């Protein structure tokens, strides 16, 4: 009897779970699928329509006109360039400063708990608020802290948003994302095996050689995670640009998301904006493809 039972159980476990799980998963899968497919389909549909909100009643099929117009417009190329510069620049800054902050916060010193809290704090400030703070309190050419500091050492004030617009936006975004990188890298540092560091010390590594040979390789994995997660968010940076420069001066800080916003809600061109959206989706997928490949490779090691 008991042997029979054992046999039955064995057979069932060979075939998979005891119950069919597909109907149980179906509602969430279907909901998520609709959630994704409806906006995508609408974007694709609008991108092949002539549809301007100034004259919403007269819509017609446009074929690839929206795409032709967009892809031959130098604005798009410029926006793509700005997006890539912003994303890569901010990624580099957050990794470098994130590692530095994490190393500093990992070392014991009095008041470390408070320092950690303060270092993480910018992450919890809303993008619009932080952009306003930077614009009006720090980078303002007349009232800002930076111009006061420059003036007090006898240097001319810098008008950040007109002279270095993209860099300024980048600084603000980096300030918001350094805490995230710090947090991930700090936890990773804390998991570094103490005996491994001691073994390296006995092997003669210390200071910079210890950092480059032991610490940095240990951090690679979490760095790739930081890069992956941040890329997702940085590709869609918008509030900081709207609040500070509104994409200007000229098109100096117009990124792809901001270009789409401008086309749709300032030029009222829904068709053109949708075509821009499709370009953004393609771009995001290209990035995702390479990211997932490199990260999968990195995590396997």
């Amino acid at each position, binding site marked *: 009897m008991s042997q029979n039972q054992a046999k039955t159980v064995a057979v069932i476990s060979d075939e998979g779970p005891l119950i069919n799980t597909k109907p149980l998963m179906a509602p969430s899968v279907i909901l998520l699928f609709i959630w994704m497919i409806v906006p995508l389909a609408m974007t694709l549909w609008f991108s092949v329509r002539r549809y301007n909100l100034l004259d919403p009643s007269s819509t017609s099929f446009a074929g690839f006109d929206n795409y032709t117009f967009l892809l031959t417009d130098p604005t798009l190329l410029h926006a793509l360039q700005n997006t890539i510069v912003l994303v890569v620049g901010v990624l580099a800054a957050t990794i470098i400063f994130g590692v530095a902050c994490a190393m500093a916060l990992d070392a014991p010193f009095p008041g470390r708990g408070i320092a950690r809290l303060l270092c993480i704090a910018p992450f919890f400030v809303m993008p619009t608020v932080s952009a306003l703070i930077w614009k009006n309190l720090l980078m303002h050419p007349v009232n800002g802290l930076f111009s006061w500091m420059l003036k007090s050492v006898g240097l001319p004030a810098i008008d950040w948003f007109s002279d270095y617009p993209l860099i300024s936006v980048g600084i603000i975004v980096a300030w918001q994302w350094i805490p995230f990188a710090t947090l991930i890298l700090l936890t990773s540092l804390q998991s570094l095996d103490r005996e491994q560091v001691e073994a390296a010390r*006995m*092997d*003669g590594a210390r200071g910079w050689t210890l950092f480059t040979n032991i610490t940095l390789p240990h951090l690679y994995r979490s760095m790739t995670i930081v890069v992956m997660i941040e890329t997702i968010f940085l590709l869609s940076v918008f509030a900081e640009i709207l609040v500070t420069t509104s994409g200007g001066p000229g098109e100096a800080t117009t990124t792809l998301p901001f270009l789409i916003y401008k086309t749709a809600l300032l030029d009222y061109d829904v068709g053109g904006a949708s075509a821009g959206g499709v370009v953004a989706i393609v771009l995001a997928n290209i990035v995702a493809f390479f990211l997932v490949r490199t990260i999968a490779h990195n995590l396997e090691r």
Partner: protein
Amino acid sequence: MSSVTLKGIRKSFGGLEVVSGVDLHIKDQEFVVLVGPSGCGKTTLLRMIAGLESISGGELLIDGQVMNRVRPDERGLAMVFQSYALYPHMTVADNMSFALRLAKVSKAERDRKVNDAAKILQLDHLLQRRPAQLSGGQRQRVAIGRAIVRDPKVFLFDEPLSNLDAALRIQMRIELARLHKQLSATMIYVTHDQVEAMTMADRIVVVNKGVIEQLGTPMEIYQNPSTVFVAGFIGSPKMNLFEADTALENGQAVAILDNRGQRIPLPVDPPRGARVTLGIRPEALNVDSQGPLGGEITVIEHLGGETLTYIDIGNGKLATVKTGEASLGQVGDTVRVSFPPDRLHVFGPDGRALLNHRNH
């Protein structure tokens, strides 16, 4: 020539003293095992020798030179860690040559040394693998290889076998002993496992509560434990220890066991009315109908080649008897046992041995 001398070495963490005044001289080419229960300070002692822990007091000399403030990599030591502490992002070859690379040794020289060490440890075919692709025993060998490559004056081992399974541990024990002969190097080895200490050491240092309890060759310590602690710690199965009162009866000092008042004549004369602890190794007990100890057999453990019989000698106190394949009887039987008088250890109220045994 590489000797290590500790002179009154102390270590305190805040107000807590974990090593309190250790004097020890380790001769050239000697294999010394520091053994003790966890938290006894043996690892801290080793880490102070290595330079990973600062020395609170006393002097450390390697080859006659004071090393207290010398950086770990300049003491000429190599250490094998409990967790192996291999660098996961480097290949086996890179792991082994890391110290040489930092010391700016030429590539050809590095390769030669790594290949030599790999040959000794049979790692030749694994040099291009990463630590994650190795088994526990192989990782252990890489960790030892990393130490060999540096050609150190002294090898330090911090419980290197405790992460291995039992079979592998025995094999590595033999390999380490062989390696010691082959390299004729000075080795200091820390473990909590008294079997490792007994099998590998030239000399054993039993550490307890931050001080050296006893120092000697394995057989000296086994046959002549100087304290109750050493008696109970060294030897498996554990030595039988019985608490007793003492009295003088007919001009002969006797111990009166707490359990059933069994009387055992003492070869020494303890202070009047002193409490003593009697120690008898399990293999020294034999069945003897006239024996002073006796009781019901409660448990029999058959280990194949040997058999352990536990006899209740009163108040639940068990005496362990070790015999060959045959056991003393059945569970529930009552047996009596005796022992040769020269196998009796007597410890005074302070836990120190009251008489010295000659070597058998």
